């Protein structure tokens, strides 16, 4: 990651009639970021993304992408962006292959059969490339959505809720793909979600918005305070556990103890060390439950839940 700003949003505002969907939003995405764009449903995420790719015009404010004003350099900028916006819609009466061929041509690239098949393989649809898209399941369409976003090998990938409607396996595959694109292909990725863990698992930086306004922006690790995690250990024998922990430094890290649940405040690497300590001392651990730190964080700053 470098300090080159890929996306620079200044005082972005969008009104639909009297409704303020996005209010004076500022954000920066740097080269190589996997940038999480987090907020509850109706927070203004999709409206912001639609403005980033010129589907809708801002009421006020400025968007710079790759250092250039979007309003003036739209075509040049869009050549280097791949995007999935909300649900994956395609020309259902055409095959996946033909859809990608058309979209590749519209992206002004020399779209070859090899390139189309390479992208379809990347998202696991190579065996169904001839099938009409209307025969695809939602999950398959979502993966085809990723394929169309990647067909022209963009530098910036914008994903609006890319795991919506996917089963756990599908969600994991998308996450793995995002990490692959970030680590191996060095893409900058802007991903929106209302799912906290999704952002935690892939993003290095993030912004939380609510009611169209930014609440906080920063590094995920800083915001989550990974040195101060709340972790619940469920044990078979609480009394025995207390005795064993007596005289160790772990005792000071206990926040609360009720029934067979002991809540510790731990740094991330300490979780596995404590687990090892317990197992070696004959404490039967039924479960280790880390608290939803981001959720906690969000609740703290907004006093409301997702």
């Amino acid at each position, binding site marked *: 990651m470098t300090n080159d700003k890929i996306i620079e949003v200044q005082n972005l505002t969008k009104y639909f009639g009297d409704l303020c969907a996005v209010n004076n939003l500022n954000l920066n995405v740097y080269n190589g970021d996997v940038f999480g764009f987090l907020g509850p449903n109706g927070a203004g995420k999709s409206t912001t993304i*639609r403005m980033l*790719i*010129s*589907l*809708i*015009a801002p009421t006020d404010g400025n968007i710079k992408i790759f250092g250039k004003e979007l309003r003036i350099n*739209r*075509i*040049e*900028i*869009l*050549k280097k*962006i791949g*995007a999935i*916006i*909300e*649900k994956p*819609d*395609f*020309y*259902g*009466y*055409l095959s996946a292959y033909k859809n990608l061929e*058309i*979209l590749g*041509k*519209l*992206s*002004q690239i020399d779209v070859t059969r090899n390139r189309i098949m390479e992208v379809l393989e990347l998202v696991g649809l190579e065996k169904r490339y001839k099938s009409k898209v209307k025969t695809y399941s939602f999950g398959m369409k979502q993966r085809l959505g990723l394929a*169309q976003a990647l067909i022209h090998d963009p530098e910036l990938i914008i994903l609006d809720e890319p795991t919506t409607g996917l089963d756990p396996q599908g969600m994991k595959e998308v996450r793995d793909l995002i990490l692959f694109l970030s680590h191996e292909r060095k893409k900058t990725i802007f991903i929106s979600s209302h799912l906290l863990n999704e952002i935690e698992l892939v993003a290095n930086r993030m912004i939380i918005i609510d009611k169209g306004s930014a609440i906080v922006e920063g590094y995920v690790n800083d915001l989550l305070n990974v040195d101060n995690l709340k972790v619940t250990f469920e044990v078979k024998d609480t009394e025995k556990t207390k005795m064993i922990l007596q005289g160790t430094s772990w005792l000071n890290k206990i926040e609360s103890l009720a029934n067979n649940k002991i809540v510790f405040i731990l740094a991330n690497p300490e979780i596995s060390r404590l687990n090892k300590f317990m197992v070696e001392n004959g404490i039967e651990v039924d479960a280790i439950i880390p608290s939803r730190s981001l959720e906690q964080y969000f609740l703290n700053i907004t006093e409301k839940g997702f």
Partner: protein
Amino acid sequence: MLTLIKIELYKIFKKWRTYIGFIAIAVLVPIIQLAMLSEGERSLDFMTRNLQQSFVFVGNLLNGYLISYIILNSLVVHIPFLITLVAADLLAGEATAGTYRLLITRPVSRFKILVSKFISGIIYTNLLVLWLAIISLGLGVFIFGVGELIVIKSSSIVIFPKYDILWRFLLGYMFASLSMMVVASLAFLFSSLVENAIGPIVSTMAIIIVFLIISAIDIDLFQKIKPFLFTNYMSSWRLFFDEPIDISKIIDSTFILVGHIIAFFGTTVYIFYKKDILT
């Protein structure tokens, strides 16, 4: 631009609804021709009954040219509906399918997207009229043969010798295409306003019917409006079957129809440029 037009044409001709117009013409026109084959002589006799007291008609008057002329007269009401089926879907269809997002997020200007779609719609319109010409004139001549064309007007009767007819049909069909392009442009304009093709189809047809009614009612106010209604010029292809041909009338009609196309398309561009894509 050529790539965009090719893509749009590919999309149009991959849709089932595109072929409804071609199939409808391929079915309806031969039905009319078959009906004329059995009943045509009697109909022609009825049409010319007043003239038979003064003239003697000889030769093959019930020929392919007459059949084609009669069928072309139905253009005003029926063919526009077939045109709107596709033209109304050009933009609204993308909104319905949610594929506007795919199009607009590509590095292509909105203007180019519009122009490519519009041109594709115009190509479809011309192909449909060409198909009508092939079926009605081609098949008509094949079944009924050729002969003089008798054209009965409100105050006159014109009989064209068979060597003087084909070029009139050629220009007549070209003019008919122009008037159908106005219909396509109007449907295209409505298509940019909504997210479902049904609305533009109904709206376009409603406007055509209302304008035709206004043109037909003999009230001073309506007669003043009439020259500004594009429907008033949709039958101007008949001017090529006048003798002598009134060139200035044809030029005026052409300008008015082209003006409508430019106005409808210009309005579409304005709307589409301002449009927030929310589908």
